[in-house]
């Protein structure tokens, strides 16, 4: 962040020398907005211009040496790119669009960021104040539309509001449980001049981002953990958002507790850590799902008991005492009743918990996880990642990426079978490495999110794993990769189907494959049309060398892997079933 304040001062100084220094500096709302962004440390933003946001774009042109704007090929791409950037860097992602359709195209990304707690600020242009409510050209009530999918939103109708509102927007987006904020700015407010000064927001009186931890609750949690015979940890993204990876690891090791993760929590603890027992949820690992209903203490940290995690609620962990560590009070007792609720930031609460925890080992209990893993390995994993049958599997592709990247890549996934397979088999050795659309399940997320992820972590290898369906939902963002030579690796696992829906049709709709067969174009030619190096493979013998070639490339690289057409993802907890009813086939 160093240099941000400097940058602002520098630009204002330049301004000052060019005007009468005694006269107050009047700048336009649009220019003020740029200064706000710079003051908040924004370096990169994603967006798409249009009539109602043109004054801001005019300023972006003038400030292009200080603020990079990436023109995505669709506003949805801008939001997902901002999300990818935010998720990999922990900073606020910024997207910008015009009024009307530009604004409505942000909605999917807002909803995705809201449900996955991603800090994002979206800026939209709006028709001039006098035209509000007249059904003017490209007028839409984006405040009304975005209300249910934003942490906060606000319409600015005069320039003088800009500094305070923007400061508040960034503060709200990143504090507490992060989320998306949308600021709608009428065109007149972008043009009007006013005396600009900026003060960062440090608090909002009606908003308490982080509840104060209660020591009594932490003591109660410690007592339950210390006396547990079969304790089990399930952590979520709250560990990553709270920067509590170190504390989680210490807790797991000190208390000797087997620990599993939700899809959003992936990568907070090394995949290869001996007490990391895998993923919970519909396509999670066998042991952690099954044993959720056998543990005596369930310690849930920074997770929200999504239905994809819990299965049928009335049969979820009923035997266990539930301890819920959570920053958002509204999550307590929302889905699963907590015997002990510990409110607060996970880094702080786990930090307070650790000294109260006795050194312990639960080897016999841990061994049951290992036994269940062996069963899962023999029936599923072996065939997924070391198949002997003809036809490439998604799992073996992921395994090769692990090997070629030494478990160090950022894996960005879309939604569907490939996502489940990637999350099951990708190995992580660093936090913030699994970027996926968890809560909303947004197909089309991965390609733009990978662009943002790469820009948010230029020193890291970013691999987008995408299905043939989702790829075509935001395929136009290849244009960004082409234009800016963003060296992401794109792997399309092509089974010529909407695989997950097809799997459900096979299992629950007597193989009536309604609209799930994909008639696909030549993806390699499309990538080549964007001057992206591209390859297609369909044979096992070509897999290793091609993945190695891709990972070694310094450029964007597109790889289409033709995988088996009717592969299924197992284990599976059928929709509405209990975690105990997890199916191995």
């Amino acid at each position: 962040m160093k240099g941000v304040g400097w940058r602002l001062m520098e630009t204002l100084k330049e301004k000052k020398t060019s005007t009468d220094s005694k006269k107050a500096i009047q700048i336009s709302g649009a220019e003020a907005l740029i200064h706000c962004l710079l003051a908040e440390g924004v370096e990169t933003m994603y967006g798409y211009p249009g009539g109602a946001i043109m004054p801001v774009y005019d300023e972006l042109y003038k400030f292009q040496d200080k603020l990079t704007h990436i023109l995505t090929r669709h506003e949805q791409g801008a939001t997902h790119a901002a999300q990818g950037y935010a998720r990999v860097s922990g900073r606020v992602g910024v997207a910008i669009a015009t009024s009307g359709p530009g604004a409505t195209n942000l909605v999917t990304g807002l909803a995705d960021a809201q449900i996955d707690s991603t800090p994002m600020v979206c800026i939209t242009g709006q028709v001039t104040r006098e035209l509000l409510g007249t059904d003017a050209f490209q007028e839409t009530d984006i405040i009304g539309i975005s209300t249910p999918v934003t942490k906060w939103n606000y319409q600015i109708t005069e320039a003088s509001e800009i500094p305070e509102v923007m400061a508040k927007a960034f503060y709200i987006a990143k504090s507490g449980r992060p989320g998306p904020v949308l600021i709608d700015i009428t065109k007149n407010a972008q043009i009007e001049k006013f005396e600009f000064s900026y003060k960062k927001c440090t608090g909002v009186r009606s908003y308490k981002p982080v509840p104060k931890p209660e020591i009594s609750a932490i003591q109660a949690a410690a007592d339950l953990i210390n006396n547990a015979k079969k304790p089990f940890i399930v952590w979520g993204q709250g560990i990553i958002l709270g920067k509590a990876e170190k504390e989680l690891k210490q807790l797991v090791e000190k208390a000797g507790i087997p620990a599993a993760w939700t899809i959003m929590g992936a990568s907070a603890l090394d995949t290869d850590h001996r007490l990391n027992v895998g993923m919970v949820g519909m396509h999670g690992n066998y042991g952690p799902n099954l044993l959720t209903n056998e543990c005596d203490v369930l310690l849930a940290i920074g997770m929200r008991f999504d239905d994809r995690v819990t299965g049928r609620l009335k049969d979820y962990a009923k035997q266990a005492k539930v301890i819920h560590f959570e920053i958002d009070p509204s999550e307590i007792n929302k889905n699963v009743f907590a015997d002990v609720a510990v409110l607060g930031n996970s880094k702080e609460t786990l930090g307070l918990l650790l000294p109260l925890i006795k050194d312990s080992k639960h080897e016999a209990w841990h061994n049951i996880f290992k036994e269940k893993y062996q069963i899962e390995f023999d029936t599923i994993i072996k065939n997924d990642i070391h198949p002997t049958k003809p036809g490439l599997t998604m799992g073996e592709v992921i395994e090769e990426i692990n090997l070629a990247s030494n478990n160090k890549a950022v894996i960005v996934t879309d939604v569907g079978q490939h996502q489940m397979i990637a999350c099951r088999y990708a190995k992580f050795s660093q936090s913030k490495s699994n970027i996926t659309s968890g809560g909303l399940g947004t197909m089309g997320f991965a390609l733009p999110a990978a662009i943002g992820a790469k820009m948010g972590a230029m020193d890291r290898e970013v691999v987008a794993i995408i299905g043939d369906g989702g790829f075509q939902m935001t395929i136009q963002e290849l244009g960004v990769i082409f234009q800016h030579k963003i060296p992401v690796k794109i792997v399309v696992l092509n089974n010529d189907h909407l695989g997950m829906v097809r799997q459900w049709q096979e299992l629950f709709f007597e193989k009536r494959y309604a609209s799930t067969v994909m008639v696909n174009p030549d993806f390699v030619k499309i990538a080549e049309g964007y001057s992206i190096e591209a390859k297609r493979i369909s044979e096992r013998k070509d897999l290793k060398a091609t993945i190695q070639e891709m990972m070694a490339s310094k450029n964007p690289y597109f790889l289409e892997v033709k995988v088996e057409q009717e592969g299924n993802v197992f284990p599976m907890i059928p929709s509405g079933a209990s975690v105990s009813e997890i199916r191995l086939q």
Partner: protein
Amino acid sequence: MHKRKGKWLMENKWFTISVYSENNVGLLNRISGIFLKRHINIESLNVSKSEIDDVSKFTIVVNTTEKWVHNIVGQIEKQIEVIKAFYHTDDETIYQESALFKIASGLLFDERQIQNIIKDNNAQIVTVSRDFFVIAKSGRRSEVDEMYDQLKPYGIMQFVRSGRISVTKDVMQISAILKEF
């Protein structure tokens, strides 16, 4: 957040939700959206100033289970501009509704019973004009309904009833929260 010990009662009940908030454009939309998302009907809604300067108060009545009202209050309180939200059952609050009846003036003189109805129900005549007069009645929903039933046979030109307003028997600690800031 309002917290109760033990498990929720699962039957539907009347709950009064009290929301203390900043007075901002769009907040009503944000709050009503929380009910919409859960397909829960708002039975009545009142917005007014509160006992604290510059703090608004929403009074919302719903008929649902405690599990849902707890969930809703949590979601309401999460909204940035909401200072605090509570929920209470009927026996934890003092509550009233107000109603206005517009009646043809002639009836006041021709039907002596009308005056008795006004007196018996502790209602007030707000205004009288050549063509109509207006009766105001405050009380519980059942009391207003009773008076409505009594007047109905004589002909009611217009009728309106407000949302519930209520105060709680317990203290609502808002000032303390605001002082912390």
